[in-house]
């Protein structure tokens, strides 16, 4: 047996075992892209680098045999930097969008391609679930939104963007009109209580998110009816009151305790309550001093967290209430929505002063996600920022290629005030170019880029061309997504594929190819599925997976 130490843990492994095997036995997760059990390590990606402390050298864990007496380090700043650089180098030579441009254009980061695909499949129930995952007020926004998503739509550069906003409204209206409108599943009650001050778009969106997480929400508003600026800034024909009422009702029915006509006087830390709480509960407890109608009452309930969503407020008044202010409103940490008072969060126009309604809805959701982290005792993550490789503008050839796989219908919208019919909606939804990557959330490159905080634009160079090889066949290859891991080459070779795959050229220009100009279907007669499952990115895919993103199989680990 071979004895070695990894991250100060001793381990014994069989002779011939690699450092990766040894780490696995210890439960230490070392990132790998090009490695697959059962195949010869190709040591090409080099994100599995670990440090041999005796020689001071970095070695690939996947292929380095464990040697008696070795001392290995698997996590350090130095290793993180090298791994991040390896990932950034791979991303600098990558042509693909993990997430579609519309994802980033929409402040709420709604999964628009998925929604459009579901509409295209006429699965309205699935579509509303996709929408409501990120947008609490789709019927409202479907009417009043200034549609940043459509400005970001890639098809806008060709023959007009997909009619995203109208289609969202179509789904939301159909849902509200149905006998059993969609309601998300809520987690069992956590016992935690949250106060949300302001029932405008921010507060409503936050309440919707927090309720789903099982937190008890009390929503305070100084007006008789919830909706905040939605009731003052928009008028009847743009936003009929019954639509607003119906959509708010869908939120409140998740069990949200609405306190209308309430003026919040002060939020104080309740030390007496804190003292009574169990020791393991680290959160401060808040008491709200609210004036209800003409009477002033000290709200007896104690809260574990508070969200300030009271809309645009004079900074002086903000300071008077005990918060740090900016010129526009409350000062918060941009990443976490935390104010200068721990446990109190702020979002929407209370912070921004003014902004799009969809921005407020997005803020409410993200602030709520931060609060969920906070209430769970986790470090608060930045929920607004998500890693993605991005292709940016397409060349005319690239555009022609992506247009060829979507409906060629022209953009059309229903006449003023009217709504889509199902057939028209389906046709318009099928205009979506399905820009995001079908391996999103299944791609190893994306996963580790996210973990190591890789910046795809570190080198600021021109990305490779986006091309798809094999159109018309069952297997597709996107050279721009290939990281030259060699797995498919090895799998085909081991299986004795008559044609198989090979690398051609060398150095930076090395690329995967089918010998003698064969097609991918000729190359992979037996092992296409294995190659596609092994592909660490989505360089190799089945054509049918693109027609149904749900079909993306899990990658082999």
């Amino acid at each position: 047996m071979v004895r070695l130490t990894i991250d100060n843990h001793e381990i014994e492994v069989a002779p011939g075992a690699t450092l990766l095997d040894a780490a696995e036995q210890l439960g230490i997760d070392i990132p790998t892209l090009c490695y697959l059990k059962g195949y010869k390590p190709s040591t090409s990606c080099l994100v599995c680098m670990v440090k041999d402390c005796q020689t001071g050298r970095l070695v690939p864990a996947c292929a380095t045999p464990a040697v008696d007496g070795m001392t290995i380090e698997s996590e350090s700043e130095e290793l993180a930097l090298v791994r991040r650089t390896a990932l950034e180098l791979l991303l600098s030579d990558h042509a693909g969008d993990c997430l579609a441009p519309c994802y980033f254009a929409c402040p709420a980061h709604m999964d628009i391609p998925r929604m459009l695909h579901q509409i295209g499949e006429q699965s309205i129930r699935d579509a509303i679930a996709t929408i409501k995952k990120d947008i609490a007020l789709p019927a409202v926004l479907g009417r009043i939104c200034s549609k940043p998503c459509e400005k970001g739509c890639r098809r806008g550069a060709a023959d007009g963007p997909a009619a995203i906003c109208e289609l969202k409204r179509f789904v939301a209206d159909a849902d509200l009109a149905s006998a059993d409108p969609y309601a998300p599943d809520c987690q069992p009650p956590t016992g935690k209580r949250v106060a949300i001050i302001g029932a405008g778009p921010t507060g409503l969106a936050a309440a919707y998110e927090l309720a789903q997480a099982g937190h008890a929400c009390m929503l305070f508003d100084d007006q008789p009816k919830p909706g905040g600026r939605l009731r003052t800034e928009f008028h009847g024909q743009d936003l009929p009151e019954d639509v607003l009422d119906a959509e708010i009702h869908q939120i409140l029915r998740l069990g949200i305790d609405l306190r209308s006509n309430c003026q919040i006087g002060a939020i104080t830390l309740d030390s007496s309550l804190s003292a009574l709480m169990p020791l393991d509960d680290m959160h401060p407890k808040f008491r709200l001093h609210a004036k209800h109608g003409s009477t002033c009452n000290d709200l007896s309930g104690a809260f574990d967290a508070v969200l300030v969503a009271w809309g645009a407020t004079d900074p002086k008044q903000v300071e008077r209430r005990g918060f740090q202010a900016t010129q526009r409103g409350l000062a918060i940490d941009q990443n976490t929505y935390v104010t200068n008072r721990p446990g109190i969060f702020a979002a929407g126009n209370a912070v921004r002063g003014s902004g799009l309604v969809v921005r407020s809805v997005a803020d409410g959701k993200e602030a709520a996600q931060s609060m969920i982290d906070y209430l769970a005792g986790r470090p608060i993550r930045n929920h607004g920022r998500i890693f993605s490789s991005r292709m940016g503008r397409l060349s005319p050839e690239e555009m022609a290629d992506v247009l060829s796989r979507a409906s060629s219908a022209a953009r059309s919208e229903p006449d003023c005030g009217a709504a889509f019919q199902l057939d028209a909606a389906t046709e318009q939804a099928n205009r979506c170019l399905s820009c995001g990557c079908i391996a999103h959330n299944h791609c190893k490159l994306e996963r580790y880029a996210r973990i190591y905080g890789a910046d795809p634009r570190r080198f600021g160079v021109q990305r490779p061309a986006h091309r798809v090889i094999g159109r018309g066949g069952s297997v597709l290859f996107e050279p721009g997504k290939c990281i030259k891991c060699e797995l498919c080459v090895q799998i085909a070779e081991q299986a004795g594929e008559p044609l198989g795959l090979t690398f051609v050229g060398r150095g930076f220009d090395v690329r995967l190819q089918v010998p003698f100009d064969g097609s991918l279907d000729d190359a992979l007669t037996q092992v296409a599925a294995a190659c596609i499952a092994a592909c660490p990115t989505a360089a190799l895919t089945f054509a049918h997976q693109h027609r149904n993103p749900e079909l993306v199989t899990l990658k082999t680990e």
Partner: protein
Amino acid sequence: MPMPDLDLSFVDQTVADIGRGPETVIPILQAIQDHYRYLPREALERICELTEITPASITGVSTFFTHFRHEPVGQHIIHVCNGTACHVKGAERILDALAHHLRLGPGEDTSADGQFTVQEVACVGCCTLAPLFQIENATFGRLTPQTVPAALDAFRHQQDSSQKRPSRAVITPNGATGEIRVGLGSCCMAQGSGQVHDAIERVLSKSGAPAVVKQVGCVGMCHQTPLVELIQSDGQSSLYCHVKPDDAEGIVLAHFRPRNLARRARYAVSRLLDRLHSNEWNGASIAAASTVHESPICAFLGPQKRLATEYCGQIDPLDLDEYLRHDGFVALKQCLSDSSPEKIVDAIRQSGLRGRGGAGFPTHIKWETVRNARQPTKYLICNGDEGDPGAFMDRMILESYPYRVIEGMAIAALAVGASEGIFYIRAEYPLAVQRIREAIRRCDQRKILENGTSGRDFRFHLSVQEGAGAFICGEETALMHSIEGRRGTARLRPPYPAECGLWQRPTLINNVETFALVPWILRHGADQFAALGTDRSKGTKVFALAGKIARGGLIEVPMGVTLREIVEQIGGGIAGGRRFKAVQVGGPSGGCVPAELADTPIDYEALSQVGAIMGSGGLVVLDDSDCMVDIARYFLRFTQNQSCGKCTFCRIGTKRMLEIMDRICTGRGHQDDIQKLEQLAHQVSAGSLCGLGKTAPNPVLSTIRYFRDEYEEHLNGRCPAGKCKDLIAYRVNTRCIGCTLCSQHCPADAIPMTPYRRHVIDLEKCTRCDTCRQICPMDAIQIGPIG
């Protein structure tokens, strides 16, 4: 375009000759390309039908190596050398001139008449002739953009007359009293020593002068070629430099006077003396005749010590008897008769010999490991894939001392217990390949590598494998992949080849020079070898000295000699009176040692301390007209181009580094680019799998270390050395007399003709080809910053 009626019978014949195993792919492809001049698709498919070679393998391998061409080419390929020496001496301008002369459009490489295809090659190892190109077997050196058309004409002329040329007569004169040695290394041949040799033979046969003409290997003094040495019967020796065929008669008759031709001789001698008195030094006539004890030849030879290159310029490379007379195979015989393998390895250990291929790994450890390996089959490989631009030591040793390398290998084989040896020689060295093949044949014929003389059972089989144009194959794991018929990608070590190498067997891989030193060590004793050199670097090292030096050539010096001694004493200092700026040591894996540190000794550790490496032994001397940023970019471009493409850091990292270097050299650099470059360089070095990637950043890091100010100047839009085309402008100063020469020669029509008036260069049209500056008789063209 596929040819419908391509005759594939040659493919069938080749497969029948070479074999059907997957490992035969490279030799088969080489044969196919030799025959069809490229690799026709039908031929490749036919190979797959006939052999075990798969379509994936043949496609992968044939596109990996740059020698293989998948498209038909022009009738003659012009290989333009882009080695370091050629680069600093203006290879780019030669390329421009060729493109201009052959009227090649952008992206085109073949002339419209299908006569010539222009191809850049990494380095042909004739650095003292830089800049140069090769067409077929002819080398045209010391070119300028103006001489390019003449070189092509000369080649065409040579083609026309080649049929008429008489075959070389073998002369065995009676009662010869002297010997005339003509160096016939690649460099010498390129300078016309073949013709000189023929001319001397003609003179001898016509005059009956009492001497024999003899071809010897590289003389080392490449700056003086063609070089003829005459040894008279009393042992006195005279050396003639820059000899032309027309000079042959005079030289021969001056020393070997045929009795019956006295009058003619007297005449000839007086003619020769006249010429000597006129003291022309331009190669148009005999430059100098001097004894070897006179300077500057004396100085050139002075601090040198010849072990690997013993009997330099004295013995006929292929004359086995002569090698035997010069103690050849004595060491092998000793080893066979009274030395155990342990004792041989021990001698190597005591000698302190370290690998001469670059990294300086102790040779005896490799030998010991292979010797101790239990597998019955072991291999021996001589790594002659000398790919560093600016290095030609291995070529010269292989060409000039084939038997010495063979003997070293045979001793190693005996020591480690191997019976199969392979020479891996890069295909850019056809003469080396040819001589090694012939030397092996002669050894086999005489059963030198079999145990005939003593009681030990020893039989050593040698073969030659030619490289196919991939620098990475100098890396031992890539080299073995290529012998096995695979793409020449490097792999992780361990396992080291000594444990698990070629065909998974223990394999001893040493460099050419390492093997060449072995016979000397065993003949003279390890102590004598260890007495030379420094504490940790023993013996001698062969260097290819080139660049901006007065006397370039192939030198062998004891370790410990300083760079300054090499540059100043042996090399005679900087040519053309310019200022010594730096020495590039170790090629693309090495670094630039600035003139201030020229007292650094030749020593593995000392060189690595100053950011260079011993490398395989290229020394390119740079003067103040060389831009260090440009030099760094040159090397980085080389390694980036030669990366096998396997691992991320090397494949993409070197590319990203090069993009930053390109930005800097073209005045588009960002203020933080130096820092970015340094960061990325360190990560590429730490993260790469093999030596190529690990050392690729060295030229960049060492130039940033010593010449950071030059990088900063570039960021501010200036190239202080006036080298980077995008940062300089050519202007005409007041010395111009309006002679119109520049205007007549400008290939870009950038200088309007204004007779008797000062000319003006149109900077928009100017391609910075330097033609005007070189042609101007008044030194009126000057290079300055843009704007």
